């Protein structure tokens, strides 16, 4: 791959070739940038070939992808707005992954968080907006948190596989949402689109000044940074990683694995629940079936591409936000079907997962070359 060699040439240029100690010291860090970068480049090349088979020029493809995702200020805002919910839903998978758990039910936590946040707002019609928003944040986090904690508890106390249970809980959450929205919580005025009552324009959280991007992006960035600090710079995070590495060893050294699982699951679900709250408070203004837009499922992809690192979730979410932002332009300018974006996501996923095997195996990065 050309990019691969170009990147390694660049890496070689930074590191004086005659100084192997530099590579020894920084080899691992370089790997974390180089390997995903090469995987991404490889995926783009394969996607280019795929598109060429449809008789489209791959260079046009790359140009429109860049233009639609990052080419103009508008494109950037489009990308960031799409990335915002993905950062939070990705944390729902990335945090439990530290414990070796594969949670894929972020969508369910998002829906329950949205419902809880909407209920909080509707229960406080007299409160000032700031208080309502605060209550919505708390309700969203608790709602989503308890939902994923349920999957954690089933695993810890009943031995139920958390991957399956968290996925099935998504459908239960959707059924609860539909039931409440079409029944007890329905706004009688919402005739053909069953919805709850609106939380009110004053309670909406609005956009970051000077942009079109809602505050959800900031919530996401703060949550990702906090998750990173928690996992890599606290004893709690260290304990979680120990338990994730070897659960029996963790028990032997006296770690309370059950408590770790429940706490991490609560935080994970809380992040997705917060994403649901933001969808209500920044975008929809009420709860209805529109909330089940798949952010929770795309979040799984983001978490795996970020190799479950809470900080790496940020650039990956922006990348996938950019791909989806440019997807529209690919449809409009190149006449590609919508599914082509899914094809690209799939190719990237396969490349990144396959590239996992390369870590620690690239000779020159170990300073041997």
């Amino acid at each position: 791959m050309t990019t691969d060699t170009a990147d390694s040439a660049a890496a070689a240029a930074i590191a004086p070739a005659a100084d192997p100690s530099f590579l020894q010291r920084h080899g691992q860090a370089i790997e974390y940038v180089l390997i995903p970068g090469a995987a991404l480049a490889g995926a783009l090349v394969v996607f280019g070939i795929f598109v060429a088979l449809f008789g489209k020029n791959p260079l046009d493809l790359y140009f429109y992808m860049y233009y639609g995702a990052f080419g103009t200020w508008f494109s950037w805002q489009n990308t960031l707005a799409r990335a915002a919910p993905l950062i939070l839903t990705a944390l729902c998978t990335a945090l439990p992954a530290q414990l070796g758990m594969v949670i894929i039910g972020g969508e369910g936590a998002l829906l329950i968080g949205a419902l809880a946040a909407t209920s909080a707002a509707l229960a406080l019609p007299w409160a000032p907006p700031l208080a309502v928003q605060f209550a919505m944040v708390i309700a969203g986090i608790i709602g989503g948190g308890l939902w994923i904690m349920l999957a954690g508890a089933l695993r810890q106390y009943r031995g139920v596989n958390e991957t399956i249970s968290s996925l099935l809980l998504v459908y239960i959450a959707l059924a609860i949402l539909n039931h409440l929205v079409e029944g007890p919580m329905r706004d009688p005025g919402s005739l053909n689109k069953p919805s709850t009552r609106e939380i009110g324009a004053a309670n909406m959280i609005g956009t970051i000044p000077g942009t079109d991007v809602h505050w959800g992006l900031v919530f996401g960035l703060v949550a990702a940074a906090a998750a990173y600090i928690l996992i890599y710079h606290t004893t709690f995070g260290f304990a979680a990683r120990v338990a994730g590495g070897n659960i029996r060893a963790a028990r032997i050294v006296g770690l309370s694995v059950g408590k770790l699982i429940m706490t991490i699951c609560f935080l994970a679900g809380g992040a997705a629940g917060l994403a649901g709250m933001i969808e209500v408070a920044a975008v929809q203004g009420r709860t209805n079936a529109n909330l089940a837009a798949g952010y929770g499922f795309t979040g799984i992809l983001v978490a795996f591409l970020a190799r479950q690192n809470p900080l790496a979730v940020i650039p990956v979410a922006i990348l996938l936000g950019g791909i989806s932002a440019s997807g529209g332009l690919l449809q409009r300018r190149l006449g590609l079907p919508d599914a082509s974006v899914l094809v690209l996501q799939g190719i990237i996923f396969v490349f990144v997962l396959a590239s996992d095997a390369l870590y620690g195996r690239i000779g020159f990065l170990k300073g041997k070359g």
Partner: protein
Amino acid sequence: MDFGRISRRHLLQGGAALTLGTALGARGALAAETTIGFIYVGSRDDYGYNQAHAQGAAALKKLPGLKVVEEEKVPETDAVEKTMESMINLDGASLLFPTSFGYYNPHVLKMAQKYPKLRFQHCGGLWTDKDPKNAGSYFGYIDEAQYISGIVAGYSTKSGKLGFVAAKPIPQVLRNINAFTLGAKLANPKATTQVIFTGDWSMPVKEAEATNSLIDQGVDVLTCHVDGPKTMVENAARRGAMVCGYHVNQSPLAPKAYLTGAEWNWEALYPKFVKMIAAGETIPNFYRGGLKDEIVKVSPYGEAVSEEARKHADEVKSKFMSSDFVIFKGPISDNKGKVVIAAGTDRGQKDAELEKMDYLVDGVIGATS
């Protein structure tokens, strides 16, 4: 140029040089060609709701001076706001057709406020005088076409049992089921319509299950109201049942089993809109109509439709075309025996009470909740 209020005088001022393109073009740089954006919630070849709109878009592509850009599978979240803005900012679109019901509030409203000089034509019929003047919504009385389908179905059934695969028990859907049943009873007073609600707009697996289960219960003519009738039509035809289509003409999927169907006629309406704008007329913000107004139509009869059925259906169709024929004419009772429209009360198509329909008429087997 203020797109929302182009007067005839404006057009004349421009003289002969003022083409359709410039009349529409709110953006001077692209004035030679007017760009119209179409946004679909599903895929545009779904043999259903979205394909009907795509056929309307295709009719516009044939007109000179128009450029049509399309984007499919756009969810009812802020993604549709970004798609609209992307069409405006990157493609120079000045007229937008966001075609899904759930796009309207808050997304279309937000964009219409943000871009007051551009025109937003939303399908669904939700506009009220509180909404921006540059937003408009249009919809069709497709229950008229369902009524005709019902007549044909009533003649074609041998068992007297008709089946209806429906998405959700909301007013629009209930109105179709009721109109279909009333039409069928015109042909066969003993006919019943068994209805199954799948719970959502696009649930192919449940739609197939519902189709099979209806046929197992002795139903021999089926119709539906879901986004993509393809599943129902193909499965019913395979089982030897007859079908009435919905949204578009599905006879290519089941040439022998297809009796007739209730179709949208967007390929007639959209060119009409564009011509109205070019001629300096304002499109009413709330635009409705049925068979007479060429907003809906009935599919050509299939070979299995008897002479008697054709004659009766054509007779009723000509009443729709020539006068304000009333489908919901009292006395009508619901399937629990309660009188919902009293004797002597005519509920014409524009009657607001019909928009709140929450019952199934006598002859329908099923419940709204």
